[in-house]
Every structure is written in structure tokens, then in C-alpha cells.
């Protein structure tokens, strides 16, 4: 690329081509600018998305104001719309799905990265990646044919018998409801956690493990306390991915949640989620106010995602401070 020139010399007027060549040689500035441009389009698209949602929900926002968040009536005929049951359902199903998917996913990822021989690990993770490709509608239909009957006749009655004193497990066992939806979401989102976590765990330098084992730690202690915490941030990223998908999932949820806009403490109760009601009613929405209210629901979900992400980030910061010296973000 030529030697570094250190001569100062008089400032000569520089031709356009010379200037361009100089820019290219300062490849980094160009690279910075180019990569920034691409990254910035993400910002642009998101802003455009929010803008579109904002504009199209105008009718509903002006009519209902803040009451949209806490009222529970959803009546397209009388023109009364409130989003609370949908917010509740979205939160509950996402929480259930994370509770199941996170331990399952991290456990499987640990197995694949630390314990399984490389060929088995590659093969199994291949298969698990396929799970992400199964269309949402097939998950839904499968759940309807296989999971719902089992929930109704075996699992839910069992839960009621053993844990029925908790308000979480009261009420008739329909088979459809928050719990079933949460389970389906867990299966749908676990591939993201496993896939990304496995890669991040594999990237942890071998010497970290060796140092720990050398100090007398058991395999499990090494894995849990050293490798996983080293990869902690990446794993959190995978959980974000999975949570995001759970929040926005439509088809599969609408088939197993019961589609009843109800707020109930029981996980066995039917409910509704924001994404499900938008998917159900958008195509047939009667009238502009209805359409506008559905669009406002989309905005509410966006807000929810914002808040949940913020909370999760705070959680990371708090645990990172407590734990061992892990690279910050």
C-alpha cells in the first residue's frame, strides 16, 4: 500500500480524483460511513413503521385517549374499544413461554456446546434450527390436534388436583387458554435461544474452562459459573429474540388461547392477545374506527416491547454488576 509519507510540504490544490483516492485510502472513514448508513436504515424503517401506526390509529386515539389502556370493552358494533384484556393476555402468555423456554433452551444449549461430541452437536442443532422454520399455522394446528386434548383431559385436571389451591389453576379445564398458548409459544421460541446461545457458548475461549477445571471445579460448576456468565450477554440477546417472537406471534396463539377478551388470574382460563386479535379482526374490520383501534393495538404492542426491553436491560445491568467481571455492552 506504499510507505507512510512524513514530508510536510506546501499545501497543493488536490484534484477530485486525488481526493477520492485519499478517501479510499482512508478506508476506515468510508467503512464507518457505509456501515453507519446501513445501520441507520434500521432506524429509518422503525421510525417509518411507528409513523404509519401513529397516523392510522389517529381516529381511535382521539376518541379514547388514555382510557384505551385500561378499559376492557371491545365492541365493534357500539364503537367501544379498550385494550386491557389484550395487554394482559400478551404479558401472561409471554411470561409463561419464557418461563418454559429459557431453562429448556439454555439447558439444551449447554448440552450441545459443552457435553455433546462435535458431530452430534452439529447434527442436533441442525434439527433444532429446523424448528424455527415450521410455519406458525402448522404449530397452531398441531397444538389443536395434539396438545389441547391432552391439556384438557390430563394435564389441566392434574394441575387442578395438585396445585388447585393457587389462584393460578382455578376454573374449568377447556384445554385452550393462557397455559396452552404459553406452551406452544415456548416450543416456537426455544430454537432461537438454543441456536444463538450455543454459538456464543462455543465462542468462549477454551482457556477459561481449563483455568476453572484446573482450580478443581466440577464440570457443571465450570459451565455454569464461568462459561455461561462469560457468554451471559449473548445469551440475554437470544432471550430478547425469543421474547420478541412470543410477543408478536399470531396464528398459533389464536388457535389455542380461546379468543375470549378476559382478564383472569388463572392460567387455565381462555384469554386473548394483542397479536391474535389484530390477526383475527383486521381483514374483516368493520369501519374506520375499528380499523383504527386495531392499529392502535399495534402501537400498544410496540410500547409494550419498549417497556419490556427496558426492564430486561435493567435486569442485565443489575446482575452484571453483581456477578464476575463480564464484558459490559
Amino acid at each position, binding site marked *: 500500500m506504499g510507505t507512510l509519507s512524513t514530508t510536510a510540504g506546501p499545501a497543493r490544490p488536490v484534484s477530485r480524483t486525488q481526493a477520492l483516492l485519499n478517501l479510499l485510502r482512508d478506508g476506515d472513514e468510508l467503512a464507518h460511513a457505509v456501515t*453507519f448508513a446501513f*445501520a441507520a436504515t434500521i432506524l429509518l424503517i*422503525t421510525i417509518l413503521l411507528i409513523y404509519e401506526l401513529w397516523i392510522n390509529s389517529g381516529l381511535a386515539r382521539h376518541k379514547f385517549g388514555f382510557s384505551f389502556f385500561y378499559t376492557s370493552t371491545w365492541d365493534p358494533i357500539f364503537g367501544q374499544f379498550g385494550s386491557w384484556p389484550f395487554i394482559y393476555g400478551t404479558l401472561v402468555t409471554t411470561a409463561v413461554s419464557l418461563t418454559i423456554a429459557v431453562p429448556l433452551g439454555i439447558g439444551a444449549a449447554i448440552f450441545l456446546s459443552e457435553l*455433546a461430541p462435535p458431530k452430534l452437536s452439529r447434527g442436533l442443532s441442525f434439527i433444532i434450527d429446523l424448528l424455527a422454520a415450521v410455519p406458525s399455522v402448522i404449530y397452531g394446528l398441531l397444538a389443536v390436534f395434539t396438545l389441547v386434548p391432552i391439556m384438557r383431559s390430563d394435564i389441566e385436571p392434574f394441575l387442578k388436583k395438585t396445585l388447585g389451591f393457587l389462584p393460578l389453576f382455578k376454573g374449568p379445564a377447556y384445554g385452550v387458554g393462557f397455559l396452552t398458548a404459553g406452551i406452544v409459544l415456548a416450543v416456537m421460541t426455544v430454537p432461537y435461544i438454543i441456536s444463538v446461545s450455543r454459538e456464543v457458548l462455543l465462542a468462549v475461549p477454551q482457556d477459561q474452562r481449563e483455568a476453572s477445571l484446573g482450580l478443581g471445579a466440577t464440570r457443571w460448576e465450570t459451565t455454569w459459573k464461568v462459561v455461561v456468565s462469560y457468554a451471559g450477554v449473548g445469551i440475554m440477546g437470544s432471550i430478547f429474540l425469543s421474547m420478541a417472537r412470543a410477543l*408478536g406471534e399470531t396464528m398459533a396463539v389464536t388457535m389455542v388461547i380461546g379468543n375470549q377478551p378476559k382478564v383472569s388470574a388463572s392460567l387455565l382460563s381462555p384469554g386473548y392477545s394483542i397479536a391474535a386479535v389484530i390477526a383475527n379482526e383486521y381483514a374483516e374490520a368493520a369501519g374506520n374506527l375499528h380499523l383504527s383501534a386495531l392499529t392502535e393495538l399495534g402501537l400498544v404492542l410496540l410500547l409494550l416491547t419498549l417497556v419490556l426491553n427496558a426492564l430486561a436491560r435493567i435486569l442485565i445491568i443489575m446482575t452484571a454488576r453483581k456477578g464476575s467481571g463480564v464484558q459490559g455492552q
Partner: protein
Amino acid sequence: MTVRTIWRKSLNAVMLSLTGVCALVTVSALFVILGFLAWNGGRSIHWTFFTNLPAPTGEVGGGIANAIVGSAKLLLIAACIGIPIGLIGAIYLAEYAGATWAFFIRYAADLMNGVPSIVIGIFAYSVVVVSMHHFSALAGGFALGVMMIPVILRSCEEFLKSVPRSLREGAMALGASKWRTILTVVVPAASGGIITAILLALARVAGETAPLLFTAFGNQFWSSGLNQPTAALPVVIYNYAMSPYDDLHQQAWAAGLVLLGLVLVTNLLTRMVLGRQTAQGR
């Protein structure tokens, strides 16, 4: 052996076997799905299924040829949008970004990821379909591409960051500029993960129905070029599964099997051609 050691050893054994159980549970879920699809749809799979256009209800011999080609077109467009923005954006976040820009861009990507697929479809409708005054494969590809971006961005950022500093410093010590280091050292080192992320994103959008309903619209016949509405596998699966006819139900399961098969083949081919490495070369 002290009590504590026994405890630690048993905990070790229990926890490690539990992780195996986790992996087993997850993998068996896929086998249940594949089994269900094969059992219910296997009968519909024969040569004509892949080469015929859909037949109207009541007639046998319908196929999903246009849906397969349509899905391929849509994924191609989606990849052309999602991969450059996602990957180059990830490079920016991992290598160049300062704290504030990084924060906003990551946040924007996480937000985009949480938007229900149907809302992305509505968004693509207002941006592309309304401007063009008709449905098209382009609009569908745009919707899917937008959905791919956050998955690729967030995962690739993590993989790029996990490349050890020593590799970067080594390259720079040899005189390479930053962008050269990134291009020739960092990205190849993270390539295993990057390919995983891209394939994961493609797999996800390959199965999405809702964003296509008002963008690619669907087509009973062949769609020509990129400007016409086009059929797509997930939409066909959805329509058939929701119809009252048993024959169409079977076709839906068979199409599901085909979709998964295509994703599997794409995964295999990509890994074979582009090679597979992790940072540790395992």
C-alpha cells in the same frame, strides 16, 4: 470425601444430565411435528404435487408448483434486503458504533422484532402496495426482509463481538487498517455464527403467513416476474388447512413437509458450499 464434595459431584451429574434432557425434549418436539406432517400429508406427496398448479376443489391432482417458486422468489427478495442491512449494520454496531447510536439502533431492532408479523404486513402494504397500486412479490419480499433484519442484526452483532481481541490485534499489528481487519479476519472468524443467523432468519420468514396476505396476496396461477401477486407455501398451507375439505387438509400437511424439506436442503447446501467454522475451529 467431604459432604460438600459429594454434593458438588452429585449436583454435577444431575445438572449435566438435565441439560441432556432439555436437548432431548426440544429435538423430540421436532420429531413429533415431522411425524404428524408425514403421517397426515405423506399420501399427497408424489411427483405431480411438485409440478402441478393448484386444482380447484373436488379435483384430484392439485399441486403446489407455483407456491414453491413463489416462496423462493419472496425469500430471494427478502434476503437481498435483510442480509445486507442486517450484516453490515451488525458490523457497524460491533466495530464502529459509539454508545448512543448503538443503543438506539439496537433498540429499534428489538422493537421491530417484537412487531406482530401481521402489522409488518400492514406496514409493507401501506408503503409498497399502495404506492404501486397492486399486490406484488416485491411487496411480500419487502415485508419478509424487514422481519429478517432484527434477527440477523442482533445475532451477528453477538457473534462478531465474540471474536477474540487477540485476532484483531494481531491483524492490526501486521499493518492492516480497521476495515481490512474486519473484512479479512473478524468476519471470517465469526462466519459460522453469521451463517447460522442468516439461515435462522430465512427459516423463520419462510414460514410466515400473515405478512404475505396483503402484500404478495397469493395466486392460483403462475405469477410472472416480481411485479405480480404470487403464491407462497405458508399462505397455501394456511388456506388449505382452514378449508372444509379433507383433500386440501392433506395437501396442507404435505406442503408443510415440503417447506421444511426445502429449508433443510437450503441449510445443508449453504453449509456445504460456504464451509463451517467456529471461532475455536471445533
